[in-house]
């Protein structure tokens, strides 16, 4: 990810980050997104994310 891309994303998200901190944010995002961008999402047939439904009623048994 380039600094220019970080700036583009900031504009789209309507947030401001100090110019002298952009490099640190760029590194953080690069590390976080590296495995995501490396993955060919078509190669995996996961069924997640999914919502789990539970039929048991939610009684007020907090602290039991």
């Amino acid at each position, binding site marked *: 990810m380039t600094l220019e891309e970080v700036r583009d994303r900031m504009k789209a998200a309507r947030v*401001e980050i100090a110019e002298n901190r952009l490099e640190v944010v760029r590194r953080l995002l690069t590390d976080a997104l590296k*495995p*995501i961008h490396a993955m060919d999402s078509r190669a995996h047939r996961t069924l997640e994310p999914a919502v789990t439904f539970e039929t048991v009623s939610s009684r007020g048994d*907090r602290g039991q």
Partner: protein
Amino acid sequence: MASEELFYATIRDIGARFRRRALSPVELTRAHLERIEKLDPKLHAFVTVTADRALADAKAAETALGRGDISSPLLGIPIGYKDIYATRGILTTGGSALLKDWIPDEESTCGVRLQRAGTVMLGKLITHEFAFGIQFPGHRFPAAKNPWDLERMPGGSSSGSGAALAAGMAFGALGSDTGGSIRGPASLCGIAGLKPTYGRCSRAGVLTLSWTLDHTGPMARTVEDCAYLLQALAGYDAADPASSREPVPDYVAPLGRGVRGLRVGVPREYFFEGVDPEVEKGFEQALATLRQLGASVEDVKIQNIQSAGAFMAIMLSEAFAYHERDLREHPELFGELLRERLLAGALITGSEYVQAQRIRTLLQADMNAALRRVDVLATPTSPKPAATFAQVYDPDYGFPRGNTGPFNMTGLPSLAVPCGFTAAGLPISLQITGRPFDETTVLRVGHTYEQATDWHKRHPVL
């Protein structure tokens, strides 16, 4: 002041002293309050000391003991709460200027359960700001210091919990762990800390960092003490949508069964990248000890482990979603570092977040496959010993890569237990991870290793 030995006794030992009337909960609590008064000005582990409440809890425990009530092993045991656990009528700050005056009218489920077990609440322990941002100098709440070296961080975000336990200022603490916030401070402070299975312990009444990664759990000086605390904390809670109805087994009784015949898997990929040589040496020696104790140790492969960094995309996105409104309305109330990290979460697209969750599903399947071959996985907990404040305050200091986050991704139970010291006297830690809801085996391996070594018996000089 009571003897140093008293402050480093185990929960089992304290319970025995109570029962034979060699010590009273009020006496023990008073001694702890004095110790906190003496030591905490230089450690900054506590945000709020609840002396009156502690003495009232201790008197109630004393009354219960007087009528022969010894049903709870935690009766009269002094405990601290990480300051992201809501405490009814008691200041709960989250280590943030935003909540500097917040007095909740509700109690966290974990707090309710510890109180029901008869514990004594000593106070609230400092957390990194909203469990994510280290407090820089000048912050509303000063950062806790590592009792082994006051120039170093105790780790985080359960920083006060780690520091208080290492300094003998409490017998147990509530921590929370989104990417390693129980196991990291446990590792760097030379204590034990357990991140239970996702859904095992309730998150109700605990400030959120990342909904799908947040775990609550116990920290203590020994594995057995963690087991006692987990016994009180574990179990279904309707107030937490992620809470599991999985039955709660006895965590304490099986601790003494040893490790003979158990299979320990070592994933060599990912977890050893950038590991400090002294940490690696301590870890290898721990493996040798486990072999001597009768466990078999083998290398295992976890497919897709190199994708575990996607953990950060999930955490950043969810943390921004949780804090967005306050960030936009009151940015000045967030510490500089936390604000920057949270805003980074705004820069991750919806598609990237979804793909990160899909990577998580793959990783879960891969770890479960590895755990069909072995009973537990072993890795170093933290790749490096505690960093100095000077290092962390460097503006270019990035977010350190950790060995704990992959197990938040997969929700597996994971324990940090001391396994040595560096030449400079800094703690090193072994991380043991097991199958879903198999805290029993994880604790058993940790306890057996711990009892064969004396790392947990060493304490900082304060």
